């Protein structure tokens, strides 16, 4: 298609190597600390204990269930946020009037961290999944909206000129044929960042009010002094977060043939 020379499989492995090295170093330092300071295994278990707990949780399927729940909540909230924020952002970026109306609400609500919404979410939604989806929605909606608006406003004005010269005879055509495609790289960045925020938010929400999920795995582990479970949760959260981000960056490269 667009002839990307970097699609070579060996190149992908080469790109992953620094992360592999870093992981090895982290585990080595961890083991060193455990060996030297000999802490209570309830406080800091050795890497092997965590690996064992990981294997156990995977075998029983419990880890899979927790991952599925956390992921499911994030993805549904994120999709919902995207479906509302992207069109809204595109329209807001394009219309000063609309922006002026919506902006005050955004600027007032945005600084309230999704974590601060958790108690409200419990009050309003109680036990149900909606509460957690709501918290993640708050965390993902604003980054997507802001990125989208910025994407529209930052479209190079000369592209708008070119669009008007080459056949976009009305505002709608210009919007559809030039503004929206030009804003897309920024939109994708917003989606990527939002997913990261959402991922962090779900863990916090699950720490407080859930029965399943990786955040719950951590909270539960804390409650029964199973630091190995806590660490399994943390490691899986870290790895999944990293993988998603890498996936989004891949999408970004696909979308943006930056001129």
């Amino acid at each position, binding site marked *: *298609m*667009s*002839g990307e020379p970097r699609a070579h499989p060996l190149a992908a492995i080469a790109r992953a190597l620094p992360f592999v090295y870093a992981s090895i170093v982290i585990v080595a330092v961890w083991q060193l600390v455990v060996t030297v300071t000999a802490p209570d295994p309830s406080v800091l278990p050795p890497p092997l204990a965590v690996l064992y707990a990981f294997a156990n949780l995977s075998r029983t399927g419990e880890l899979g269930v927790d991952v599925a729940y956390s992921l499911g909540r994030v993805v549904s909230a994120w999709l919902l946020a995207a479906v509302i924020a992207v069109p809204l952002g595109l329209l807001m970026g394009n219309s000063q009037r609309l922006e002026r109306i919506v902006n005050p609400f955004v600027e007032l609500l945005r600084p309230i961290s999704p974590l601060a919404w958790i108690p409200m979410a419990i009050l309003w939604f109680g036990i149900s999944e909606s509460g957690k989806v709501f918290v993640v929605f708050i965390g993902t909606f604003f980054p997507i909206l802001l990125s989208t608006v910025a994407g529209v406003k930052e479209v*190079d004005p*000369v*592209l708008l*000129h*070119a669009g*008007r*010269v*080459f*056949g976009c*005879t009305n505002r709608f055509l210009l919007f559809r*044929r*030039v503004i929206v*495609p*030009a804003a*897309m790289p920024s939109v994708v960045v917003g989606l990527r960042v939002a997913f990261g925020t959402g991922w962090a938010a779900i863990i916090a929400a699950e720490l407080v009010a859930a029965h399943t999920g990786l955040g719950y795995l951590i909270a539960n582990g804390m409650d029964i002094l199973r630091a190995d479970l806590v660490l399994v949760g943390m490691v899986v959260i870290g790895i999944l977060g990293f993988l998603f981000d890498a996936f989004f960056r891949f999408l970004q490269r696909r*979308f*943006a*043939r*930056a*001129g």
Partner: protein
Amino acid sequence: MAKGAGKPLTIHGLTKIYETRSGGRVDALGPISIDVKASEFLVIVGPTGCGKSTLLQILAGFLAPSEGSVKVDGEPIRAPSIDRSMVFQSYALFPWLSVLGNVEFGLREVPKARRREIALHHLRLVGLQDFADKGVDELSGGMKQRVAIARAFAVDPSILLMDEPFGALDALTRRFLQRELLRIWSEQQRTVVFITHSVPEALYLADRVVVMTARPGRIKAEWTVDAPRPRDIPSDRFRDLERQIYALLDEELSKSFASEGEVAK
């Protein structure tokens, strides 16, 4: 579809005045009156800030004149149109489209099957047919401008507006593109209004050269360049003309430096 030659452009008493925030007014351009003949290659040179780009924006239809009129073949300009195609200094290619996609962009009125044909034909004209499926970011500056030229010609315009199109390129690429532009233009000569800083470039390309004064830009002088193309600019004949034009420009430049600051063109 092929309209053949270009259309005449009549500019009469054109001025552009801006209101500043403090309530004052800035005379950016004019009054200007030119009759650009059909299929004429007109080149405008002038000092920075004289309003030549403003003029081009008015001709394109992005700005309305404050006074005076602009007519294409008797019809006043109302809005931008593919009939008055444009090449920009910063190329203005659409990064989400392939090279071919960019050239096809203005061809919406054309049935889909024909679109690709026309676009490829124009890519061939600029020698980039092998890059049809490539992304814009894979091209050098010179190649990008050639794509922009292909795009501008593909819509079969009567008038071609070019705003310092080779200004961002190095000297060798410039020379190459000047030759290419003339070659493509000569097949179906459309009316061209070309803006540049470069006097040698003006003399190489133009049927007529217009020199503008410093802001507010008016026509200081004009020369018809009757020589056949391609032209040997270093030769004596052109050297003389160059000297005269430079002298006028120097005058205007010192005037514009003397006045306080620059207003956006």
